[in-house]
């Protein structure tokens, strides 16, 4: 069990939290700016205080430069899509209610919900509720952003916990008129079980680094997974309208199990819209708690990426050779090299994860084709 804690280098009144164990995963931040992370082993509260003092000294030159800016989240609508997970939704909305500054509105999309719990919880937090009876995350996202009234729409999942500066950071980033698509940092909300730690350490989690970056078509290619993940992405409303929203054949709730975010980000780049990765836009994600859940997640990821590649190949002219290259690279590095190295190092779980992903990838193309047929028949 590893505690996840924040150390804020700017907050003079920072107190060490009570620790459950001896290990702590620490997020270092200076106010709303995220600096980095580190793992501490065998720490006591007093050591944490000393550690923070040392970091403040080390960073003194950098910290001095941070000018105090007023943040504004009033242009941001947060869309939360959920399906019968009232516990998760409650946590998610609690985090949103603690935003400083707050966002313009919160829209909860009840996707094929079987009872009224979602509605009840959402209303208790004062969120707008929209219903989407057909299962499918991308359908829900489309419903959500079309109901939004403000300029910027941010999508988070119900198992995500937004940081308190989330809306402010997004508002600042979208303050630049040319920026239309932003992804952010996703860190673990808890590291209580081995499966969660394994997802973070072995798989690398959902993080894309602590450096701000701009992605263009020329330097990404097909690998849109490098840009960000769907649990923390935001677009201008007009961009989503122009691109026709998310592709309903993708993502959770359909047979493709995911890739709605990959597809959306890829189409942004194709449309010559650069995607900005901003680590200050922070969301914490509750990873699957048990091994079965973790392996299912890996299998779904495999299916999703294979479906994504299959769709580029069948629907986008001139992409065939790039897709073939990318498939080759993907299978070689993830499903050949990785199992072999896992075998050599004796990492049984990693081997299982790689094989799950491989087994999922075999269904990707079929899943995509069947979803295409289904959407055409509708």
């Amino acid at each position, binding site marked *: 069990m590893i505690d996840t804690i924040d150390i804020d280098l700017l907050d003079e009144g920072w107190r060490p939290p009570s620790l459950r164990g001896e290990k702590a995963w620490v997020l270092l931040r200076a106010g709303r700016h995220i600096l980095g992370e*580190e793992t501490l082993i065998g720490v006591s509260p007093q050591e944490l205080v000393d550690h923070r003092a040392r970091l403040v000294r080390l960073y003194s030159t*950098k910290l001095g430069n941070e000018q105090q800016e007023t943040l504004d989240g009033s242009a941001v609508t947060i869309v939360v899509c959920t399906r019968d997970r009232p516990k998760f939704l409650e946590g998610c909305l609690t985090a949103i209610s603690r935003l400083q500054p707050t966002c313009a509105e919160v829209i909860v999309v009840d996707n094929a919900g079987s009872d009224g719990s979602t509605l009840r919880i959402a209303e208790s937090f004062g969120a707008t509720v929209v219903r989407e009876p057909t299962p499918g995350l991308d359908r829900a996202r489309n419903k959500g952003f079309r109901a939004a009234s403000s300029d910027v729409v941010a999508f988070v999942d119900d198992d995500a916990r937004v940081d308190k500066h989330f809306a402010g950071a997004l508002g600042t980033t979208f303050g630049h008129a040319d920026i239309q698509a932003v992804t952010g940092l996703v860190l673990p909300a808890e590291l209580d079980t081995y499966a969660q730690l394994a997802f973070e350490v072995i798989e690398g989690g959902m993080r894309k680094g602590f450096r701000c970056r701009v992605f263009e078509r020329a330097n990404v290619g097909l690998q849109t997974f490098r840009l960000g993940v769907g649990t923390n992405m935001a677009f201008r409303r007009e961009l989503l309208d122009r691109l026709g929203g998310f592709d309903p054949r993708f993502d959770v709730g359909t047979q493709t199990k995911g890739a709605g975010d990959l597809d959306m980000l890829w189409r942004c780049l194709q449309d010559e819209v650069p995607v900005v990765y901003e680590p200050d836009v922070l969301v914490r994600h509750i990873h699957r708690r048990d091994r079965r859940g973790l392996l299912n997640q890996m299998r779904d990821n495999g299916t999703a990426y294979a479906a994504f590649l299959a769709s580029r190949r069948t629907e986008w002219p001139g992409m065939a050779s790039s897709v073939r290259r990318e498939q080759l690279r993907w299978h070689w590095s993830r499903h050949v090299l990785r199992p072999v190295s896992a075998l050599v190092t004796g990492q049984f779980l990693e081997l299982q994860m790689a094989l799950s992903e491989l087994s999922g990838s075999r269904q990707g193309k079929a899943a995509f084709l069947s979803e295409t047929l289904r959407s055409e028949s509708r």
Partner: protein
Amino acid sequence: MRLAVDTAEPRRVQRAHPVLDDESSGDTWHSIEVDLRVGFGDLPTGGAGSLLVTAFSGATPLGRVLIPAPFDPMPRRFVEPYLEGFAMKARLADLHEAFRGSDLPEPQSATVVICTKDRPQSLRLCLEAVVASDIPLDVVVIDNGDGDSRVREETERAGALYVNERVPGLDRARNRGLLVATAPIVLFTDDDVEVAPSWARLLLAQFADPNTVAVTGLVLPASVSSPIAVAFERHATFVRGWEGRVFDGTRLKALSAGDAGAGASLAFRRNYLTSIGGFAEELDAGRPTGSGGDTYALYRALRDGWRVRYEPRAIAYHKHRENADALTEAIRGYGRGVTAYMAKAALDDGDRGAPLAVLRWGAGRGIRAIARSAIGRPGAAPTLARQEAAGILEGLLALARSRHQLREHPPLLSPGSAWEPEPTTDNVLSVPVGHRTSQVAVVIPSHGRRDSVQALVAALLDQEYPAHKLEIIVSLDGDVDGSALALKAKFGERIRVVEGDRGGAGLARNRGAAQSRSEILIFLDDDVVPAHSHVIAAHEAAHANLGLEVAIGGLHTRVTGSDLTSRMIRNWWNDHSRRLETLDSPTFSDVSTGNLSINSAAFHRIGGFVGLPRREDWELGYRLLVNGVKIGVAVGADVIHKTDTNLAEALVDRRLEGRGDAAIVGRFPEAYALLPLGQWHTLTARRLRAVRTAINRPEASERWASKLTRILGWLESAGLTDRAAALVSLAFQAAYWSGVGEESGGEAGWLALASEGRRRTLCDIGSPLELTEAALFRPPPPPIGEVMVTFRGHEIGAAPLRWGGIPWDRQRFAEEVIRRMAPSTFVVDGRLRATS
């Protein structure tokens, strides 16, 4: 070139120019300079797709990075991650600046030579920039056209000298400029270049080193806003790195001279350039060869074993070609120039490595170009690569054609005798002269050099010093060639000759000193001659005026012979005398008995020399320091030391030095860390194995010495000077360590000695000296043990003084402190790396 371009796939854009048939054509960049010390805000992109950001810390360029820039202006936050890597370098640059103190150039005057042809507009900008330099310069414009009146007008407007050279050829024009120039340093730049105000000053400052004959600077593109300029910058950038570098034939193959710099920003010692006959007139622009003249001149400098320095702080901005034809022609010309200059090296200088180098260079470029375009890397520009390849192939023919055309124009300059650094001895009139009242004895130990000792004695008798105050004592260290008789016959009673058995120069000096009743003893070696007639007076002045008890005189060495070993030894000696000139407080390893004066009371008090075959001078110096005797430099007391050496002799010297150092440590264990043998604890495992062999089997290294000479001959004739030099240093090291082994009685004895030395040296850590920024470089001699280094009030840590090297050098020490200690002290990376 440092271009961190994050590109997985090339950008697909319409073909903009037939030349740029690769997929990145049509790219434009926007070049911008950022001073990290000042900070920066959002950066304007000028509508270009990428930003070429050059990072500076103050005036020091740190590097550059190409950043995709879809937004205009590009927010600072997206630029910062790319510049994070420079933060560390900026920090180091600041520290360097603080530690370096004032590196003001010596007052040198310089002539700037600008060669131009039919480009008055561009020449005007060039001249305006040169005239705006922060030091006064003579400017000469050589018009290589047919006397365009506008060129003359522009020249006169800038107050420069106009000379017309009608025979076409850039090198011809440069040589004309060289003839017109009067200053000791000549700076060359092109008419399509604009220099920064500090350009000339910074280039000149590098000439403080007497071994340096050429200095090159950083050449940045003036603008990269057109696709053609981008293609030029990608394919043939002039940037040769962001760190100052020193090249000589032992570190860079002479045939890689192109890596040292280019003619757009180039400075030469005029006398050196004249001595090799100036630039090669059949090369460079205006001739069929197209380029290569600057590279050939640098090649000559490197091949002769002199140094070429690269100073990136001296910045010039080059306007790249703006149209596609000019670009292809320039690239093809570079290809031709490389083959042509290498062919000239092979034909005229008999460089046997040249044909191989052409092949290696050409094939390397070709393979890289093919590979780049195969994997679709941006900037591959196959057409340009083809043009360059064609140029390489036709280079030989171009050289022949160029020579044929020039047969009616004899070269302006013809090669003269080999250049030597100008004697750095002071003007005789400015030599300090004391009261000339002290009784002075000159003691000359001599062994088997009948002729040179006679010449020295004759010169000493001509010194301007009262004859009754001057004794000359020649102390023979075993008379093998009848020196005694010859000296007595020639000089009779005017000198005294002391005879004794062979026991080393130190003991001979003691015998000579025992015969004298003078207040001051001057020790001269028997192979030196005084540089002028006031040498003895200058020594006396150092004692009388400065109150020194020991004064070290200048020893300017002339090494005859041009083989690799001689060149390496020559450079070592030149550095050594340069060091003495700039020294504030000498330490024991600066004491060199070739030219030294000692107060005779102090000499006798500490017991004179000991009987070591070598390093008796360091040993004496150490005892002097330990006894608190004041050591200084005798200004103006210069002698010239002519020596002729070969590898075998040099190896014997190294071996004797090893023995001497081991003997010093035997006597004074605390000197351990300051001697070359103190490196024992920091040797790499591989080196350690070799060193242990040398210690245990001294005879093995002796056997090798004879074979080595032959191997070196082969290597040198194959143009592999750098390998040969590495081999020589290895041999020197082996000889040194076998000497150490001999003296200390094998590895067991040496280990005992080393551990004792180590223990005694470490004792001083208990009492670290608090050195502030200002006092950092004034360690009390002798520099033993460690010091606590502080910077701006912050403790950085303890640094062993041996980082300053042997002989101890404050600059080197500072650089080592920065290099080794800064990384663990400052956060480098955006990713937190907490240092404990």
